């Protein structure tokens, strides 16, 4: 697992640099939440909303691949921007618990204005 996380961080940074330019990924982590969600998340700098919009499918595909490599089923993949700005600060792939499926993934609208949904599994 340690190797996959480190390799995932490196790979994402490299792929984003190829796609967009100077991107820095200081941290990648696998997390487990009290509600039951588990996920893979990376903090990053240099990525903007427009980049995510243009390369939505590619970025999602990379995140899905890395997420699977660390044992997380990427049911819900999203970017989070810094509120009120164009800066994207986190990419996350999450395997959702039942409640978060309802609250996070079942609305037609993005759940919050700072979240850009890249991929959403259809449960129904």
């Amino acid at each position, binding site marked *: 697992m340690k190797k996959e996380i480190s390799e995932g961080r490196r790979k994402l940074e490299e792929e984003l640099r190829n796609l967009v330019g100077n991107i820095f990924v200081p941290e990648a982590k696998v997390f487990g939440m*009290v*509600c039951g969600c588990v996920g893979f998340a990376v903090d990053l700098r240099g990525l903007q909303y427009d980049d995510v919009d243009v390369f939505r499918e590619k970025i999602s595909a990379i995140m899905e691949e890395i997420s699977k490599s660390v044992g997380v089923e990427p049911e819900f993949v999203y970017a989070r921007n810094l*509120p*009120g*700005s164009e800066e994207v600060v986190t990419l996350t792939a999450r395997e959702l618990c039942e409640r978060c499926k*309802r*609250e*996070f993934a*079942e*609305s*037609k*609208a*993005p*759940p*919050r*204005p*700072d979240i850009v949904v890249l991929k959403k599994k259809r449960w129904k």
Partner: protein
Amino acid sequence: MPRFIVPHPGHFPALKEIIEVKEAENLKEVEGVFMGVMGGSLEVMGSGRGVLHAPLIEEIREQTEYAHQHGIKMNIAMNSTCLGGHHLTFEGYKMFEWYFSELNKAGVDGVIVAEPYLVELLRDFPMKTTISVLSYVDAPQRAKFFEDLGADVITVDTNINRHFELLKGIVKAVNCDVRVIVNEGCLYRCPFRYFHYNLASHLSSLNQPRSPLFAPDYYFDKCINIRLRNPTQIIKSPWIRPEDIKEYEAIGITCFKLSGRTKAVNWIIECMRSYSHRTFKGNLLEILDCPQMLRDMFYIENEKLEGSIEQWKRCKKICNECGYCDKRTQEVLTYLK
């Protein structure tokens, strides 16, 4: 008829979804929405709570038009508790006057403010002026002050949500609408409240500290820790169960506000449903705003709280002599495994 104002996270698709549910389920009492604005719109103006979206005037206009087409009023929350004195400079005055004028031209129905100077400034505009909960109106005297300054609606300090004599006194003292927030779960008489909202006001504006904070949310962390160690504080919080709304209507309060504009849209919709239907089954913490993370730690069986309002209505709030909330905590609260 009672009226509800519900939180809007700020992005247009969320507004559409809230309105779609309101119409599909015929939630007639939902009168309007409110959303925050932030530094993207105003350099010095933050908000009492975190703001996740910074709509420009054009977007506010589009959303307001859409809301009006569906009979929903649009309110803008500008309830920063600290403007660093900027509003009292000539430049600040001109800027706020310009911004209010733009909101007015955009068709906005009401503005929610905490700062008394902005209340006076809003007298020049036809938009309704709502006094924020962050003006801490907790007595008839203070309510009267704000009414005289120009308030059309006063949101009372949530600390007095269970002080029925004070609430009745405020309703009697003023002619404007009196509003209560129903699902805020903040600590009763929280020692951090003023400081926390001042911090939020700065962090949601461009008027920020020059170096990074080493404890970005000291107050929030303290708040959660206090409740983990003493869960009675959760029961003492001045939330109002959906079933107890009628007790407030009985004393002349017909305006109710749901809090939670930083939450996910489906959570907001679920709260809107519960309060509109005046019923909720399950863990009460699921529909409370501020300590949302506690819903994964505790379970408060809402049905078992039936009747508690009768004690809270006449409670003198001398907790060390009473012990009612301690007893209720034992009966209704369980730890989740």
